[in-house]
């Protein structure tokens, strides 16, 4: 900036002094006016969605305050697809079965059940009630499930009900909804017919898409089911009593919940903040405003300085490089894929590049926390011990070049998401493949939906992709690369893979079924369908007075159902 004006008259001392006094007066008036105005704003703001903060733990009222990552789009369990809705619904609703504190399957609305080759029967308990006092009956499940598969509902999770007889046909509009293989024999007995044997059906019904919906209440909401706190009925350990969009929710203890001895110990849980900013969450935790937060590696020094007990958990997701197996792609060539496989090592990515202490190097599509027949799946079926071998990688690349009849490889497209971790990984692979194989990759960074659309259209050679589990069974990953799975966006197509997946879906003998998954794991490596990158985990901290808080690999990412306040441990 420059001082303008040709003739500048220097203000004399006296002038400055008196003008300074004048200015001070103005400032005084301005501040007074400001204070009055702010007071006015305060009154107005009271009307517009307040989050009024409380403390993280209120021992006197037996309540806690937490932060949510996002505003749940709506709380219609039949249609929900996002993590935030799952967190809320897992506390205020209950399905036929649920998970206990150690993530083991336990009875929910159903007190016992039986799974046969051709179907299943669930016996419902007498003392499970909706929040308006009406008992939860088998009809509520029948209504809910029919609604999910009805193409009119357009539920994006309808596929999870496909094991039920005719579900897929109904969902594709080939059969009427009435033909769905589920019926209420009585108020307390629910009968299910299977399309094919489904030994893991008990794990499916714990998922939120299977939660009950009561018909008369649903109809009374006139299309606004799940849009507001009073547009839902609850049957979980907590009730949603207040929902101010974009800012706060209040979950209070459900006094009529049948299992209140074991679940729902807090009088109130308040979600007072909605933010994706992890630094803001850390600051809120530090200031004692929220009970827990997760940490990224740059925050760990701060956490250690504060002497917080740092815990960690796997979030369930596995991330991998997915190849485009379409005919016109170079990545269709197996020797080419083998070359890339041999030229990389996920240990290096995780330990030297990403440096997130809670991540595990990817060794398989099936993450370490999944269980097999009697113990961990990876223990029963150890994945191939991968060794990086650049020599051999170059040999395979040369074979691929000859098979494809190329003089040299053209630049290839690597599709990546816009998150920092995704970018870092993409850049690592880019330079790794350049150094080890002399291959050029162009990184195509896209935001979430654009990346998915490009994957669907097949506009990539390699994509940085990932998968999170829906239910606690190996199959939640196991069928990803079947030729019929819409999720298989690289269009991998192998009869051998398909036949193993069919066995994994329907085999009733647990050992034979797990063997099939073992074969799928072997094939994924031998045929180089994907290159596992890492299993994601989180470091997190939780207020030391809150006991039995859990972060989950399957189900809600944060679980306060079993949490209680122990004021003596500080």
């Amino acid at each position, binding site marked *: 900036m420059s001082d303008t004006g040709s003739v*500048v008259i220097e203000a004399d001392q006296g002038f400055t002094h008196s003008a300074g006094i004048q200015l001070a007066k103005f400032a005084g008036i301005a501040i007074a006016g400001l204070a009055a105005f702010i007071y006015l704003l305060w009154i107005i703001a009271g009307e517009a969605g307040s989050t009024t903060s409380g403390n993280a733990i209120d021992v006197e009222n037996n309540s806690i305050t937490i932060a949510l990552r996002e505003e749940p789009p709506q709380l219609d369990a039949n249609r929900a697809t996002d993590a935030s809705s799952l967190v809320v619904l897992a506390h205020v609703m209950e399905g036929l079965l649920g998970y206990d504190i150690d993530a083991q399957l336990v009875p929910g609305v159903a007190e016992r059940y039986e799974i046969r080759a051709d179907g299943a029967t669930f016996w419902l308990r007498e003392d499970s009630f909706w929040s308006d006092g009406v008992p939860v009956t088998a009809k509520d499940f029948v209504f809910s499930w029919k609604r999910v598969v009805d193409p009119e509902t357009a539920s994006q999770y309808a596929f999870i009900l496909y094991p039920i007889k005719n579900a897929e046909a109904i969902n594709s509009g080939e059969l009427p909804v009435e033909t769905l293989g589920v019926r209420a024999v009585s108020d307390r007995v629910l009968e299910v017919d299977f399309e094919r044997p489904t030994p893991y059906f008990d794990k499916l019904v714990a998922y939120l898409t299977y939660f009950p919906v009561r018909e008369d209440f649903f109809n009374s909401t006139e299309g606004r089911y799940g849009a507001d706190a009073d547009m839902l009925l609850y049957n979980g350990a907590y009730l949603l009593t207040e929902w101010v969009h974009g800012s706060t929710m209040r979950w209070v203890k459900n006094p009529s919940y049948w299992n209140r001895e074991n679940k729902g110990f807090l009088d109130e849980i308040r979600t007072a903040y909605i933010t994706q900013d992890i630094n803001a969450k850390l600051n809120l935790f530090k200031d004692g405003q929220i009970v827990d937060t997760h940490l990224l590696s740059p925050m760990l020094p701060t956490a250690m300085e504060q002497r917080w007990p740092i815990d960690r958990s796997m979030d369930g997701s596995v991330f991998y490089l997915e190849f485009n197996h379409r005919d016109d792609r170079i990545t269709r060539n197996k020797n080419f894929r083998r070359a890339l496989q041999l030229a990389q090592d996920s240990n290096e990515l995780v330990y030297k590049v990403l440096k997130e202490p809670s991540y595990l190097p990817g060794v398989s599509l099936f993450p370490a926390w999944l269980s097999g027949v009697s113990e961990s799946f990876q223990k029963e079926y150890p994945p191939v011990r991968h060794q990086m071998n650049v020599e051999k990688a170059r040999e395979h690349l040369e074979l691929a070049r000859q098979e494809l009849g190329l003089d040299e490889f053209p630049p290839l497209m690597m599709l990546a998401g816009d998150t920092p971790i995704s970018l870092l990984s993409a850049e690592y692979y880019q330079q790794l493949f350049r150094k080890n194989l002399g291959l050029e990759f162009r990184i195509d960074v896209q935001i979430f939906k654009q990346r998915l659309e490009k994957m669907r259209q097949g506009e990539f050679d390699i994509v940085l992709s990932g998968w999170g589990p829906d239910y606690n069974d190996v199959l939640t990953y196991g069928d990803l690369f079947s030729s019929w799975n*819409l999720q298989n966006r690289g269009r991998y197509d192998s009869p051998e893979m398909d036949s193993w997946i069919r066995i994994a879906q329907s085999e009733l003998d647990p050992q034979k079924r797990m063997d099939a998954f073992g074969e799928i794991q072997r094939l994924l490596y031998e045929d180089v369908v994907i290159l596992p990158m890492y299993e994601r985990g989180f470091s997190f901290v939780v207020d030391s007075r809150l006991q039995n808080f859990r972060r989950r690999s399957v189900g809600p990412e944060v679980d306060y159902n079993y949490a209680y306040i122990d004021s003596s441990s500080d």
Partner: protein
Amino acid sequence: MLSYILKRLAQGILTVWFIATATFFAMHNVPGDPLTNDRAMTDITRANLEAKYGLDQPITTQYLIFLRNLSRGDFGISFVQENREVNDIIREHFPVSAILGVLAVIFAATGGVLFGALTALYRNRFPDYLIMFLVIMGISVPSFVVAALSQLSLVTFNNLIGFTVLPVAGWGTILHMLVPALVLGLSTMAYLTRLMRSSMLEVTSSDYVRTAKSKGVPATRIFTRHQLRNAILPVVTVLGPAIAAITTGGFVVELVFAIPGLGRYFVEAVQQLDYTVIMGTTVFYGAFLVFMVIIVDVVYGLIDPRVRMET
């Protein structure tokens, strides 16, 4: 004057229509659509959803439908928040952004005028150097840095004191607003300070101030009547666009301080390709911006009669 206002309004409506049209076609040309999701869906599910939202129509039909609804002020239902009307989202969340924005503008304007006048009075002396140094900082440091730093210092301060003096994040009481508003208004305050300083200096060396001095008008009267009043004009000019820019540009501050404002919806809608919310917020913000500029022009005419004469 009336015909001038009417003319400006007509221009404004044309501008908003142009913004809406450009956004509409740009948005539809981005790969993917709001229905794209992590879990792939069957063709019939997609077809049903497309029919529900009218995405199965040709793009020109969709545009015409959009224009018809726009003329009625109806933006439709959000794709992501499936049961909420875009109008409700704007109605519920804009007031939050607006309150924050107004407070920020007040901070910016008061601070800008005071500091600007101060630097001009103490030109080339210590207060001038100090304030101008801070001004350069205020302009060049991006708001996400300032926001994160101020939040961090709040936490440190609270920890030091032992209880929460000012809340770290959230919304509801005036205490929640002070720091975010200050952060939001900071760069504007810095800009206004500079503007006020140079305009004050220009006025100080003008003929009428010299005349007033030679007439023997008291110094305070010269300062208030002749200097401040004239020097403040350029500040008023930029204030309108500044209000609009601050109110619509609070995304980062809203994110960091977990404030339920509209800025968050504006940005998230783009990431989620939520067509209806993108259109709703864009048109709303566009109209707001245009409207603010018109108001400033009119107010300017009231303050300075010369502007009125020219039109």
